[in-house]
């Protein structure tokens, strides 16, 4: 689906999960969101809905890189404590290193750990990770690397020698 406008994906995914329960189909729905996306009020409408209807077939992963389009997420709208927020809303919340597949897969293997509860995974990440001149520089939210920068980034990421 088209998720260009933020704050829609969680609700649509939860709708699919609800349909799964109605149709008695065993699928699970995974929704990937950003931390900036959690600014949208509709996210929190959805966050209250899923646990109220015991939708334990929902897994929301939040890419928590602490930056959004024009500033640090924490300074734009108060997000933290993010995992506690999801817990308080009735979700089974986990925090992982978003760059560590083992940690992510470990959580995947456990869920649903709490029957009747949806799962939120707060994946701590670093924006531009692995590229020295991109890490921590939010201008790269907008910029397109030129040929030289592209080569350098590929080298640093180990894609080319």
């Amino acid at each position, binding site marked *: 689906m088209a998720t260009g*406008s933020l704050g829609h994906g969680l609700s*649509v*995914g*939860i*709708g699919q999960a*609800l*349909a799964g329960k109605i149709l008695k189909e065993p699928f699970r729905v995974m929704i990937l969101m950003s931390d900036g996306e959690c600014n949208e009020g*509709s996210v929190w*409408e*959805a966050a209250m809905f899923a646990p109220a209807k015991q939708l334990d077939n929902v897994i929301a992963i939040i890419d928590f890189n602490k930056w959004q389009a024009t500033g640090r997420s924490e300074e734009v709208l108060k997000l933290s404590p993010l995992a506690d927020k999801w817990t308080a809303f009735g979700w089974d919340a986990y925090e992982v290193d978003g760059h560590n597949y083992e940690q992510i897969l470990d959580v995947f293997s456990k869920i649903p750990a709490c029957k009747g509860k949806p799962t939120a995974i707060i994946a701590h990440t670093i924006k531009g990770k692995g590229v020295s001149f991109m890490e921590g520089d939010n201008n790269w939210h907008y910029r397109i690397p030129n040929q030289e920068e592209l080569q350098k980034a590929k080298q640093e990421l180990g894609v080319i020698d």
Partner: protein
Amino acid sequence: MRNAFADELNQLALSDDRLVLLSGDIGNRLFDRFKQSCPNRFYNCGVAEANMASLAAGIAMCGLRPITYTITPFNTTRCLEQIRDDICYHQVPVLIVGTGSGLSYASLGFTHHSCEDIAMLRSLPGLTILCPADSMELRVLLRKALQLPGPAYLRIGKTGEPHIHQSVPDLEIGKGYRIKNGKDVCLLSTGNMLFTALETGTFLEKSDISTEVFSFHTVKPLDTDLLQNLFARFSVIATMEEHSLIGGFGSSVAEWTADQNPSLTKLMRFGTPDRFPHKIGSQNFLRSAYGLTSQEMAQQIQKQFKCQTLCEH
């Protein structure tokens, strides 16, 4: 109308297990029978209409037929982007039901009035817009709307609307329905204005003005074949609706007349068409695709100007 809605929907849900009713925390006791007969197909979504609209899109994507139900402004203009992006763009069969439309909730103040909903929703590609005049029209339109392949908006009243039809009329979505024959003037009513339109007709007939009356229960798609016929037959045609003069049913007829008889009008309209783009490119690419370039518009205007000048001489 809302009791007829609950009753008809209950009957339909008994024979169609794809129907799922989502309510925005209204209709206290109204859906008791539905909840009893289909306990796993009724969900109170709370006072959270944006979420409800997107949930419905997700549910419909899985092959079910969700119906969202709450007071009109909250189920339409409040969650307009969810309707646009999640329901209309994906053309999923969600039925959006606005209850207490127009001025039905007059005494509750302007927050509960809806005189802009048709204007906003009419610009969304692929959304059928239905405005029943009474409980009988509502029953047949509800039944037919739930058979459409795509999304629809059903704009219903509240309670105590006068009965116009004695039995369920044979309405067809997209086709105006003649209520009364006449030969001098023609009244086109949408939604709950029909009774008043008929009364207006009675007044006119007292002055020897023979009046024809139609229920335009479908605002979109507009019954342009019928309009063609009526504009040829009558010298005065009036539209009536509990909705703003900007963007509603009357506007849609006015747009049609402006576009229809290019030899008679001085107005030409350029803009984006009634469809979502499925090929994306630069702004100029989309402008060209929509004929919004100076060259294209100049050509069209030139053609029109020549035609007009010829007509005048």
